[in-house]
Structure formats: C-alpha cells, structure tokens
C-alpha cells in the first residue's frame, strides 16, 4: 500500500510540475502571502475573492491555486502577528503572545526565521501524514453507509461549531442557519421550491461566493471601517541577516517545533478541529511542560515555534478529512470543498480513485508551494513589511470593488451582488450579537449532502431511527458526539461556578 502511495505521489509531482499548474500554484501562494500580510484580510477573504476567477480554469489548477492561497496566507499572517502584534488570522493570535515581545527585544527577525522553519517542518509532516493516512482512511470510508455518513457529518458539524472560540450554543445555532441556507432553492428529489420567496434567482440556491464574501468580506469591512488602529511600525524593520536565529534559540525551538507538529497533526485528524484549536492547544501544552513557564508571554522562542508548527501541520492535515470523507475541518476547508463541487468534483472516498491527478497533484503541490514560500519570504521580507503600512482606507474600498465584480462574474448577474450585500449586513448583525460566521459556512456546504444521506438512510431502514445506533460505525460517531456535548456542558458548568475560569 505504501509503495502504491509513493508511485501515486510521483505522478502527483508530475501534475504539480506541469508548467500551467506550477504557475497557478505560484500565483496562489503569492496572492495568499500578500493578502495574509495585509491587516484586516485573511485566508477566507482571499479565497472567496479568487473563487469566481477559478470557474474558467481547469479543476486541478483551480484547486492548487486555492490551496496555495490558504497556506500562503498563513505564512503572511505570521509576519503581521510577530512584527505588529496584529493577529490577522485567528490561529496566529497565540503567535502574538511571544512573537511580539521578541520583536520588542530586537529579535523579531529571528522570530520570523523560526516561524518559517517551524512552518516548513510542520507542513512537511502534515503532508507526509496525508500521504499515508489518506489512503487508509479511504479504504475505511468505502464501508460507510448513508447512516454512517450522516452521523459523521453530525459529529463534524458539532465539533466545528462547539470547539471554535466563542459560545458553543451560538456556534450550533449558526451551523443550523447554514444548514437551512443550504436548503434554499429547488429540492433535488421533488423539484419543490424551498425558501425562494418567488425569486427566480434563488432557484439554484444561495451562491456560495455570495455567502462567503458577504460574511467574510462585507461584514468584515463593516466591522473594521474606522476601527483599525494605526499601525505601529516602530519595530518593523527586518533585514535578511536578522532572520538567523542564534544557536541558543534554535536549541530551544527545535524540540518545541516537533511537539507542535505532533499536536497539529493529531488535531487535523479529528474532523471539525482546524488550525486555530491546534495552535491554542500547542501553546498551552508547551507552556505547561516548560521548565520555565514564566518566560512565556515575554518573548520565549518556544512560544512561537510550537504553535506555528502546529498550525501548519494541521493546515495540511486538515485536507485529509476534507478530501477523503468530504467533511471539512473549518470554514476555509468548507470553501475549498465548495470550489471542488462547483467544478463538478464530489469530495469523498471515491475522489482519490476517480481523480488521482487532483488528489496527488494537490499533495505534491503542497511541497512545491511550501518551498516556493520559503524562497518568496526570505528575499521579499522587506517588501512584505512595507505592505503592512498600506492604510485600511485604501484597502477596503478596493477590496469592495473586487468583491462586487467577483460576485457578479460568478453568474454574470447583478442580483448576486445584491444578495452579497444582504448577507453581509445580516452577517454583521450576527457578528455584533456574538455569532461567528465560520460554522455557518460549514453547515451550508454540508447541508445538501446531510439531507440527502439522512433521507437515504431512513429509506433503507424503512423509517427506523434505530439504524443510527445499530450500525457500529454510526454508533461510534454518535457516541463521540454525545461525549463532546457532555464534556462541553461539564466544562461550562465548572467555568460558571468558579470565576477564575471565566477568561480561560
């Protein structure tokens, strides 16, 4: 099995090195890196912006580019967090804790160097994990029936909505909203129009680009306009030779890096846990096992290496459940899944067999892309730092225009722009009420399949709900889901009882 995996991987490299694909991968990582650096923009905005452009592309090139944007923006986001203390992307919130103090001590360059090294180590391990685990998971996944898939999706949705930051209850509500939004349009089985309110534009359902750009674009701008603090560039001058860490820093960082990698890859295997959770768990673990926990938060190099490695190994590993089971780990994966579906490719166990070029090409391109990123980041660090100074007042109007045109071009229809505006305003209201939009996207992407599998499972069991607990695979997933809810409830009750836990 491993030998076939290696042969497939070799073919994957051939796909990734095709000039067209290589070019798009490069465009993706460059754009991702660029957007990741810009304050107030993240991977989600970047991917949704370029999503309409990929409709005309080959599916392989499209997915390579979109994936490139994702991990490219992770690299870019680290620069922002370390030099400016601005976490542009949630997983980097913990990188700030020690990265910025290092910058203040004049070791910002070294922190960036360590970050790049950690990212590469983490990513490489994540990719390796994908090569060996994905085929294994696929062979298991072929045994899944409709009821099992249903329970797995339920588990993924629950984990995705309750493990993210913020109130679990609100996360679940947003997931339900996403599932509901997925139902808009014609019912596949009967052709019945659902929730279209007589608008013929909605017969095909809510446009995923409109949804993503509404909540991650327009709602974001509404939240950030005039609320972005002026950037403090006091420490943000980094030269190439500053990036070399000292021997002492390396000695401390290397073991942390490997621990982070392990944590990240474990988190990646659980559906619904994305890089944000991985980085928080990694930081907490590193601090707990450290002999000198008091150094954390004051520029401990381990505090940068461990979460960064975890983030990147989890970013790569997250592709495993997304591609092989069709269950995305977070909102970014949900978007990528949506992109695949737009290109007529149904992710799931059959993907590896039916589209080996996409699957293995993607894996190979991860490596190519990560190496490209190292080459991009080392010489261009000065340019990235200068990009940090682009004021938000230039950024958001331009991004708004690209959103409008991008949404328009998905169907050549101005209705989609109005749809995006509506979703954006509604999304902003929800954000202000403390609801995070990410679980909604997860629900939206899985909604159609969830209903379809539920329908099929109940048809096969003649309406007997016991099928979900009688099938061992399904029962296992449901048991984990129940455990998850019970654990969360217990933790919540404990937190309410003891005020010291309130901010943990």
């Amino acid at each position, binding site marked *: 099995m491993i030998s076939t995996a290696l042969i497939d991987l070799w073919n994957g490299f051939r796909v990734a090195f095709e000039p067209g694909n290589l070019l798009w991968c490069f465009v993706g990582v460059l754009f991702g890196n660029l957007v990741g650096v810009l304050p107030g923009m993240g991977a989600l905005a970047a991917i949704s912006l370029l999503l309409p452009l990929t409709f005309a592309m080959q599916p392989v090139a499209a997915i390579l580019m979109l994936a490139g944007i994702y991990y490219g923006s992770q690299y870019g986001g680290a620069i922002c967090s370390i030099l400016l203390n601005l976490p542009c992307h949630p997983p980097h919130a913990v990188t700030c804790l020690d990265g910025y103090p290092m910058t203040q001590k004049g070791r910002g360059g070294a922190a960036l160097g360590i970050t790049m090294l950690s990212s590469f180590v983490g990513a490489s391990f994540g990719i390796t994990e994908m090569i060996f685990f994905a085929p294994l998971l696929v062979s298991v996944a072929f045994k899944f029936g409709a009821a099992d898939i249903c329970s797995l999706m339920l588990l993924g949705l629950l984990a995705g909505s309750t493990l993210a930051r913020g109130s679990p209850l*609100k996360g679940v509500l947003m997931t339900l909203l996403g599932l509901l939004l997925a139902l808009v349009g014609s019912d596949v089985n009967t052709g019945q129009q659902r929730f279209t309110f007589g608008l013929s534009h909605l017969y095909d359902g809510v446009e995923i680009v409109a949804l993503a750009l509404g909540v991650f674009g327009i709602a974001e701008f509404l*939240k950030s306009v005039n*609320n972005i603090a002026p950037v403090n560039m006091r420490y943000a001058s980094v030269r190439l030779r500053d990036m070399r860490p000292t021997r002492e820093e390396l000695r401390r960082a290397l073991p942390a890096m490997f621990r982070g990698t392990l944590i990240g890859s474990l988190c990646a295997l659980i559906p619904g846990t994305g890089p944000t959770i991985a980085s928080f768990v990694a930081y907490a673990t590193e601090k707990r096992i450290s002999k000198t926990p008091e150094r954390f938060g004051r520029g401990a190099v381990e505090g940068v290496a461990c979460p960064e490695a975890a983030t990147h190994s989890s970013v790569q590993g997250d592709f495993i459940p997304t591609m092989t089971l069709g269950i995305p780990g977070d909102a970014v994966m949900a978007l990528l899944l949506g992109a695949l579906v737009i290109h007529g490719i149904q992710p799931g166990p059959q993907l590896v067999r039916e589209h080996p070029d996409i699957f293995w090409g993607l894996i190979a391109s991860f490596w190519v892309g990560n190496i490209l990123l190292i080459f991009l980041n080392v010489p261009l660090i000065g340019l990235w730092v200068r990009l940090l100074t682009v004021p938000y007042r230039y950024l958001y109007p*331009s991004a708004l*225009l690209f959103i409008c045109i991008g949404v328009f*071009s998905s169907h050549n229809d101005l209705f989609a722009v109005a749809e995006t505006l509506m979703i954006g305003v509604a999304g902003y209201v929800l954000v202000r009420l*403390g609801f995070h939009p990410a679980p909604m996207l997860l629900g939206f992407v899985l909604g159609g399949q969830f209903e379809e599998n539920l329908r099929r499972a109940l048809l096969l069991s003649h309406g007997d709900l016991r099928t979900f607990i009688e099938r061992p695979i399904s029962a296992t997933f449901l048991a984990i889901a129940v455990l998850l809810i019970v654990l969360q409830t217990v933790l919540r009750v404990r937190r309410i009882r003891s005020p010291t836990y309130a901010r943990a």
Partner: protein
Amino acid sequence: MRVLLVNRDMFGGALFVLLGVGATALGATYGIGSLTHMGPGFFPVALGAVMAALGGVLLIDGLQPRGAGESEPIDELGKTVARHEWRGFSAIIVGIVAFIALGKLFGLAPAALGCVFISALGDRTATVKSAAALALVTSLFAVGFFSYVLGIQFPVWQWPALGSGP
C-alpha cells in the same frame, strides 16, 4: 455593560426563535412526508424546530445575570469590538448599491468609479480628493484586468436603455 450582554443574548436568541419558527411554518407547507419517505418539508421543519428550541435556550440564558468578564463584545481574536460606525456603514452599503445601479444603467466603468469613490468616503480621514484618486486608480486597474484580461460579460460603458443590460 451587564445590560448590554443581556440584550445581546436575548436579542440573538429571539432572532433565532423567530427564524426557527418561520422555517418550521414555511417548511410544513412543502409536505413533510414520513420518516421512510421524507418530503421536501421534513428537513426544514426539523431544523427549524431545533433552531427555535436552542434559540429559546439562548434567550433564557441571556436573561440570567452574569459576571462582567464575559459581557464585552469580543470578536474571534478576542479584541473588543468598537462602537457602531454609521459613516463607514452607510458609505459601504451605498457604495455597493451604487455599483448595482450604475452597473445596470451605464456599465462597469461608472459602477467601479462610483463604488470605490462612495465607499472610500466612509473613512474618517478620507477627503473628496483622496477618494476620487483611489477610485480612478482602482477602477482603471479593475476594468483593465476584468474586462480586457479576463473578458467578463459586463459592458465597460453603455447608454442606459431601460430593460436591457446585465
């Protein structure tokens, strides 16, 4: 601050109760079917019911008094969200509406100019001059890229003719 939080959860909970009840009511008209043969209304009704129930839990939860620590509105990065920004809001929303209206009537170029110009005015430090300059540069780039490089189906300029256009 305590009052604010209570309002937030109450409001959010009430919103979802309404959404859930609405979805259930509307879904019921689509035909529920049976467990064996789920109709198009089955899933919406089920979702709506769960949503309304959980929204109710949130609503009740919001009524409970709570410590000040959790009461600040924070975003996903844990930063405190600042107050409403009416100038920015109206500029962004009017900017998009302008894009739709101008795009429908005159084509992409005026739509792009209008959209960027109006939304740029939403920033407190922006002047008419700076917004106009930004609009010009961005629109030139966008029209060049989307119309001439990618060739999207959107006329750059057209005379308004009622009933036509994209």
